[in-house]
């Protein structure tokens, strides 16, 4: 090949490679639907307002959760990312994102908690100033809002969202919807201080096993989440947020989880509020909790 053709080929190759390498960064962000179908003016800083799953098998995840909780799905195709919104009674209650798991990776899918904020960028500064780390920089999505993902000082990951359509109203979750979130961490005391600084929570110290903490994070006179020491047998487990789905009958739901290919990690057991709870995983390994929350007011409380 003559030299001048080589040079032309070289230049064309460079241009193509440049375009290919920068295209993802220049692409418009996916057009995610708003958090609320009907926008409101409510903002509840520190409330878990969305839970999002990253899974290597979106189709199987949709099949599992639709059979378990009667969720329906709305597919979002944008920027080459496969994403689905889960709906329950017409309300968006979760997001599911397809992400291939590279061969040899010993990781599991996870449900990510999104906490409501007013100013994502200000929160990012507070995270860094207080020992946390930025895992995903603040990014805006039309209709959805601005969000970012962080790791707290103990290593648990969480996301924040400043929703442009407002935050979900303060209502009791229906069965098949997220009702509670717990942070299981290596240092509950320090973690509670970190999140209190970020979200201005009140922190309530409840009775717990010796050497352990069960702390309640509250805002607007409502409980938002708990912070717990790791269980006795797993003091070295990786800190993480665990989200709970409200169910009417934990024991019955366990049977459905297993029949659909999921796994039971913590068998049904009574919790402080008097109902049964359990921890399970979906067929791909994503972990979540099941929590009964009786409508009646006269249930026995476990102290």
């Amino acid at each position, binding site marked *: 090949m003559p030299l001048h053709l080589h040079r032309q080929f070289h230049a064309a*190759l460079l241009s193509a490679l440049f375009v290919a390498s920068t295209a993802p960064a220049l692409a418009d962000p996916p057009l995610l639907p708003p958090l609320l179908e009907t926008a409101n003016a409510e903002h509840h800083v520190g409330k878990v307002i969305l839970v999002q799953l990253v899974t290597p098998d979106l189709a199987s995840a949709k099949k599992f959760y639709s059979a378990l909780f009667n969720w329906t799905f709305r597919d979002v195709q944008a920027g080459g990312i496969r994403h689905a919104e889960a709906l329950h009674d017409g309300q968006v209650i979760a997001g599911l994102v397809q992400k291939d798991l590279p061969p040899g990776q010993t990781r599991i899918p996870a449900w990510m908690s999104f906490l409501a904020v007013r100013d994502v960028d200000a929160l990012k500064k507070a995270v860094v100033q207080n020992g946390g780390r930025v895992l995903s920089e603040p990014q805006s999505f039309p209709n959805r809002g601005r969000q970012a993902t962080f790791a707290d000082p103990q290593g648990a990951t969480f996301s924040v969202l400043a929703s442009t359509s407002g935050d979900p109203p303060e209502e009791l979750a229906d069965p098949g919807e997220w009702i509670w979130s717990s942070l299981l961490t290596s240092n509950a005391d320090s973690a509670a201080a970190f999140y209190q600084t970020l979200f201005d929570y009140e922190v309530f110290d409840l009775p717990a096993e010796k050497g352990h903490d069960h702390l309640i994070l509250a805002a607007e006179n409502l409980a938002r989440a*708990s912070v717990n020491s790791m269980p006795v047998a797993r003091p070295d487990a990786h800190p993480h947020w665990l989200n709970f789905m409200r169910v009417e009958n934990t024991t019955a739901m366990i049977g459905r989880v297993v029949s659909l290919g999921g796994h039971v990690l913590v068998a049904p057991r009574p919790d402080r509020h008097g109902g049964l709870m359990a921890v399970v995983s979906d067929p791909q390994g994503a972990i979540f909790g099941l929590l009964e929350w009786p409508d009646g007011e006269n249930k026995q409380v476990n102290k």
Partner: protein
Amino acid sequence: MNAPRKALAASAFTIGLFALVSTGCVVPADGYGYDSRVSVGIGLDYYEPYGSFYGGGWNSGYYVGPYRGFDNGGYRRDRGRDGPPRSFHPAPGTRPVPTIPSRPRGGRGHGH
């Protein structure tokens, strides 16, 4: 090395450089599995480090759920005067422990 070979070598070097740059950006950050290639799109790309969370150790007194509002106004841990100082600012002892929202969706229930 003659000119055509130099041009080919330069092309190969350039391809290799771009490949290195473009893939180097997607190395998971500090073991958290974050992938900036995907984060460009949705800002979320995380797999928890594998396993080991569960499979035992949840004793009968290990509670993670919310407090359920009852007429005793909530109860607190009694650490006594010699309890270790806390890193957080505890809510005043006179404050009842809050519970989760109790108002049914779209209804006018019994408040929070």
